[in-house]
């Protein structure tokens, strides 16, 4: 088990390396310099500034500095918000995004797993068609459509829920539904397909032949095996939720990291965009690692070599 974990950990190194190299090259291939402004800059001042930001060093040295800084999770200063480091902005915004994203993932799992099981058990019956139709609709209605429609229905026409901002639990209802629905749909489909496959497996027949009760067959044998695809979806799912929260935060005016990211992208705040991309990249890689290890631990077919 330890060896397996270490092996997965070693597998993270090339991924991180590619993430860092790709972002670094992207920034340096981009036309223009971050020092370019509206007015031409005297050569001496420019040289001084370049020296200050180490832009005069050879590329490889800059790359080394960049790796060292990122290794210490130091993302530099924001261009747009003066006197604020990217780290400060991440520290303010991320907990908010984490709360919205975490609740959305929970929402998707808590509803999607039972719904998928129901559809599988009632395969090719009305309940199945209903659940599958609904989940296809869930996949087809993007969060930036669902969000505004919900605001229209529940905040503009009826005064049931706050339209935006952060506060009590009511503020979370619409963002979580908007963000979670698509993953709810994916989880339902995954759970249904996996349950159907497991139900047909010979070991289930064996369990029934032993005379186990239907409940016991389901809880002890079917469920753990059918949950595995959902667990392996958690990695990409979490990445997608982080991405989706960029939009949802924009719609509902939630002061999270995603909102900073969009503002930074629109204002070409290079360091902030880069810092958030790196930060999210690292988070996603770390989360994938945790899911992989968890998967290996849960699935008896994975061998620890």
């Amino acid at each position, binding site marked *: 088990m330890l060896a397996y974990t270490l092996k997965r950990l070693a597998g993270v190194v090339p991924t991180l390396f590619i993430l860092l190299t790709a972002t670094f090259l992207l920034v340096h291939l981009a036309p223009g310099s971050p020092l370019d402004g509206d007015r031409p800059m005297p050569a001496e001042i420019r040289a001084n500034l370049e020296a200050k930001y180490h832009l005069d060093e050879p590329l490889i040295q800059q790359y080394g500095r960049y790796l060292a800084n990122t290794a210490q999770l130091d993302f530099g200063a924001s261009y747009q918000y003066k006197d604020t480091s990217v780290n400060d902005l991440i520290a303010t915004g991320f907990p908010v995004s984490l709360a919205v994203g975490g609740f959305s993932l929970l929402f998707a799992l808590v509803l999607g797993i039972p719904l998928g099981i129901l559809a599988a058990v009632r395969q090719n019956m009305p309940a199945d068609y209903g659940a599958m139709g609904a989940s296809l609709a869930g996949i087809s209605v993007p969060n*930036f459509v669902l969000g505004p429609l919900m605001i229209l229905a529940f905040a503009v026409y009826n005064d049931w829920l706050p339209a935006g901002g952060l506060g009590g639990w009511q503020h979370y209802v619409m963002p979580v539904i908007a963000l979670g629905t698509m993953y709810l749909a994916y989880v339902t489909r995954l759970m249904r397909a996996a349950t159907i496959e497991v139900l047909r497996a010979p070991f289930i027949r064996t369990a029934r032949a032993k005379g186990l009760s239907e409940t016991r067959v389901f809880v002890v044998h079917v469920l753990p095996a059918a949950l595995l695809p959902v667990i392996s979806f958690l990695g990409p799912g979490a990445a997608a939720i982080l991405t989706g929260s960029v939009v949802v935060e924009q719609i509902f005016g939630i002061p999270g990291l995603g909102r900073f990211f969009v503002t930074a992208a629109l204002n070409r705040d290079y360091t902030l965009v880069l810092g958030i991309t790196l930060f999210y990249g690292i988070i996603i890689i770390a989360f994938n690692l945790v899911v992989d290890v968890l998967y290996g631990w849960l699935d008896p077919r994975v061998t620890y070599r």
Partner: protein
Amino acid sequence: MSRAVTKQAGGWRKQQALDRAAAGNSLGRDAWRRLSANRAAMTSLGVLVSITLAVIIGPWLTSYDYFSQDYDAIWQAPSLATGHWFGTDQVGRDLFARTLTGGRISLMVGIVTTLVSLVIGVTYGAVAGFIGGKTDSLMMRAVDILYSLPFMFFVILLVVFFGRNLFLLFAAIGAVSWLDMARIVRGQTLAIKSQPYIEAARMAGAGTARIIARHVVPNLAGIVVVYVTLTIPQVILFESFLSYLGLGVQPPATSWGALINDGTGEMSVAPWLVLIPSIFLAVTLFCFNFIGDGLRDALDPKDR
């Protein structure tokens, strides 16, 4: 153990399907028969064809264009009398023309970008699967690594650093959406590789490149069609997402995502501005997904 048994069964069925394909193109006909029996998929196909035609022809049917402003006719509700069938926005632009012209961009991005991802994905997957061995595991390891990167953020990064233009959008989205295709094509190639006709071609003196291009790729068509149908809506969604954030197509050009973004701001005064483009986008995505699902069932009758 159980997994191995089901796998084998699946392999056998695939074999059967391939045998049928060999016997005079009957897999295609068979699949079409099964698809046309799927009423949901056929309805979706009909709706999709209508939307495509509307998007192509529609803008010529109205006397308004999509960019002219008319301050005497702002926030007009949809009406047949005024000729603004879908109403107008906050500067009096005709939403009918805007929705359909925006649809052109959305659908075009969807199709062109999917073609980009198709070419990359099929080539990559077929080469990895056919060559096999160390090359294969190295190539697939690279795909695994790319999988775990936050692509949306990369595309935004690209757009921010290199400016916003449609061509970059095609290339960037295409470059990140070929991974699924590569994986699936590789898996299928592994199965095709051991077919007798490949051996026959090799014996007849065909080189690797020729075998991949003439014998492997054509036999991938079925599975590739399914994934193309499922990639198009993803790409349309991706573009809408970027345009919604203001990072996609730039005014005066528009797309469904950009229209939904514009409409969201005017929602309480003029709800049709967000409703109509949203309906177009959602219905299109829904139809593509339905057809993709239907095609998958039609080509792989495993779950029937």
